[in-house]
């Protein structure tokens, strides 16, 4: 096994430990080690990518982790085309976010802790994508969950942040429960957890049944759906999407790295990695497509009316992740991972741009107090514009290629729900362009709506923050060129590269249809931008009127379809009531405390009686002894 593979996760792990231990002493220099580690990882990831591009696929065990009966689990690395792409996304964005954070987190009292956690996250995410078996994936999966929890609640003195961290962790429990069941079922079925062995044996389970609690399931469907449960939690699909918008309580660089570019895409990675299993079940693929399409529309509509700059982008993330799931659902895994790749750059850029705005506004996140920031934040403005164009699918930018490919694949697939997903995807392409530019115009155009105090503080961010923005902007423009389709003179390089792992989903349509579909989606995107321009720049009084005339719809959207309220009423409140009245008041206070306090009280009372026998006078004891001896003699004599 090449040395760089070991170094790849090891560098951030060491940096995490050392930074955590030496944090107090390092103080404001604490970023050095994590940035060095992230650079080493990026270098190693590029080396891995180079090797893979030259046809070297590594699948090697590092050492045996667990041996228990039939269960053999190793720490091992599988580096193929899919892993290489993920490695490059994770390490490059991680490094840029590390650098950006030097400016963004400057002066924070817990500065070293922040960088230690970033390193921990990088390590965990690398373990997740590098693993060559399900259990190591699960290890990474839970470890990124942990670092996500730690970083969402980074400002734990703020109650909302601490609550958001808990919410993210608890909501993910639901998904992870399904994932762990799925992994167990994989082990029960195949007797191994190694990807390659499982995937080779996978076609053999077609048509097998699995009986559980008297219900019979198709084995491949059950495995696929259980694994998908984990993806639903981690990637914030309906019905477990509620944690991601709240996760925006964390520092903005964290939102960019964890809750946009890398960790939340782990679900897509899981589905793509296990594509030989998912391919066996058309039910599961349809479920993924429908869940993806519904979430896509759902999140995009909520994003229309949010006023918190980060929440708009968060809902946009949920909606874009859904595109990736739609792609996986229709069997175009390569397109899904392609969108993951391009999305990572433009979404990280959007978030870091938001961070730059928030930094300039002194912590303000409400777009209603912004406006006209263009002249104060020129670099942020231009990079943000590029990111918004990219996500809207403006021709030539990264988002255009990946989104178009997904829509094309959805249209041409033979999965039943493909056309439905295509239509939703098209509508959402329009909505996405609209809300992205609504945010853009509200933030950067018009007149400034904040306080004069805020206006006096407005400033462009320092170079340590703007340079990562510019680099990401380069990614947001060019990342898509890797997958430029043949009709545009490209070679579909991405698809060819991924084909050994993800297979090739060919779209057998005439070029004319392909052109037409592309035209429609570009038109949808551009009209979204035009509508946003019309409503928020030319006629700024119109949105208010619209809000008046559609007040009922608006209320539902602003309250995010009341999903949170529903969960509180159906799950949280009953749980609290059960804890308060059954567990706390009855089981704890009455039952357990009754036993715990009752036993000593009984002993105390009994000993209180017994102690009256004791006088402390030696003579009394001797008298008792003598009368005992006499009594014994009498007894012996009589019996």
């Amino acid at each position, binding site marked *: 096994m090449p040395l760089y593979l070991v170094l790849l996760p090891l560098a951030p792990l060491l940096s995490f430990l050392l930074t955590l231990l030496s944090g107090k002493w390092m103080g404001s220099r604490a970023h050095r080690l994590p940035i060095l580690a992230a650079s080493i990882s990026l270098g190693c990831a590029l080396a891995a990518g180079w090797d893979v591009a030259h046809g070297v696929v590594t699948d090697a065990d590092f050492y045996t982790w667990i041996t228990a009966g039939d269960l053999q689990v190793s720490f091992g690395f599988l580096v193929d085309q899919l892993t290489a792409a993920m490695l490059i996304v994770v390490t490059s964005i991680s490094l840029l976010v590390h650098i950006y954070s030097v400016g963004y987190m400057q002066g924070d009292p817990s500065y070293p802790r922040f960088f230690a956690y970033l390193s921990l996250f990088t390590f965990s995410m690398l373990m997740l994508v590098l693993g060559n078996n399900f259990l190591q994936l699960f290890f990474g999966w839970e470890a990124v969950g942990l670092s996500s929890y730690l970083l969402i609640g980074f400002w734990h003195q703020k109650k909302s942040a601490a609550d958001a961290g808990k919410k993210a962790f608890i909501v993910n429990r639901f998904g992870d429960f399904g994932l762990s069941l799925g992994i167990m079922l994989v082990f029960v079925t195949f007797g191994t957890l190694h990807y390659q062995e499982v995937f080779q044996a996978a076609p053999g389970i077609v048509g097998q049944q699995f009986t559980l609690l008297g219900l019979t399931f198709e084995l491949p469907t059950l495995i696929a759906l259980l694994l998908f449960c984990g993806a639903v939690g981690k990637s914030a699909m309906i019905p477990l999407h509620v944690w991601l918008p709240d996760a925006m309580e964390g520092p903005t660089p964290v939102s960019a790295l964890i809750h946009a570019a890398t960790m939340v895409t782990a679900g897509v990675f899981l589905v793509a990695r296990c594509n030989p299993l998912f391919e066996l079940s058309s039910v599961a693929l349809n479920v993924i497509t429908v869940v993806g399409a519904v979430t896509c529309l759902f999140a995009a509509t909520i994003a229309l009316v949010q006023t918190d700059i980060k929440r708009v982008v968060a809902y946009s993330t949920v909606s874009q992740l859904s595109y990736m799931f739609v792609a996986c659902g229709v069997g175009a895994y390569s397109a899904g991972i392609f969108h993951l790749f391009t999305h990572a750059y433009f979404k990280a850029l959007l978030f870091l741009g938001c961070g730059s705005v928030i930094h300039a506004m002194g912590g303000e996140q409400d777009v209603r107090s912004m406006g006209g920031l263009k002249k104060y934040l020129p670099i942020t403005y231009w990079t943000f514009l590029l990111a918004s164009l990219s996500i809207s699918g403006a021709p030539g930018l990264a988002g255009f290629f990946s989104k178009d490919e997904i829509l094309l694949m959805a249209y041409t697939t033979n999965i039943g729900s493909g056309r439905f997903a295509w239509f939703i995807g098209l509508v959402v392409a329009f909505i996405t362009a609209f809300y992205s530019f609504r945010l853009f115009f509200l933030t950067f155009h018009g007149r400034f709506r904040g306080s004069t105090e805020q206006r006096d503080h407005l400033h462009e961010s320092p170079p340590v923050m703007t340079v990562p923005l510019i680099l990401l902007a380069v990614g947001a423009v060019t990342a898509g060129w890797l997958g430029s389709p043949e009709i545009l003179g490209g070679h579909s390089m991405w698809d060819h590269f991924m084909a050994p792992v993800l297979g090739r989903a060919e779209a057998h349509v005439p070029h004319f249809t392909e052109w037409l579909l592309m035209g429609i989606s570009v038109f949808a995107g551009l009209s979204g931008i035009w509508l946003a321009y019309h409503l928020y720049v030319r006629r700024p009084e119109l949105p208010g009127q619209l809000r008046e005339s559609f007040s009922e719809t608006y209320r539902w959207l602003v309250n995010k379809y009341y999903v949170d309220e529903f969960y509180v009423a159906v799950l949280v409140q009953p749980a609290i009531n059960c804890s308060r009245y059954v567990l706390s008041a009855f089981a704890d206070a009455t039952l357990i405390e009754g036993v715990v306090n009752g036993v000593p009280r009984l002993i105390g009372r009994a000993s209180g009686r017994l102690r009256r026998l004791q006088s402390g*006078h030696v*003579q009394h004891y001797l008298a008792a002894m003598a009368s005992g001896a006499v009594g014994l003699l009498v007894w012996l004599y009589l019996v």
Partner: protein
Amino acid sequence: MVPLSWYLLLAAALFAIGLYGFLTRRNMIVMFLCIELMLNGANLNLVALSHYLQDLRGQIFTFFVIAVAAAEAAIGLGIMLALFRNRRSVYSDSITSLKE
């Protein structure tokens, strides 16, 4: 020839006097003397029965008891001295720390 019963009665009387004294007196020195009295009552029993049964083991055993009693007297007096130094008292009813 004095009959055995007389010896035994004397021994029982000695033992009873000792027991009575131990239970009623509070001066620990006197209580200690009473213990010796009880011991000697028992010794007398042993010697009398040994003579009656023509078995020397009883008398040998008595020597042991006397030797042990001497050692016990030394320890007992030592304890009493230590108690007196600590408590300034040799009266048993003022020493009831077992109760606490």
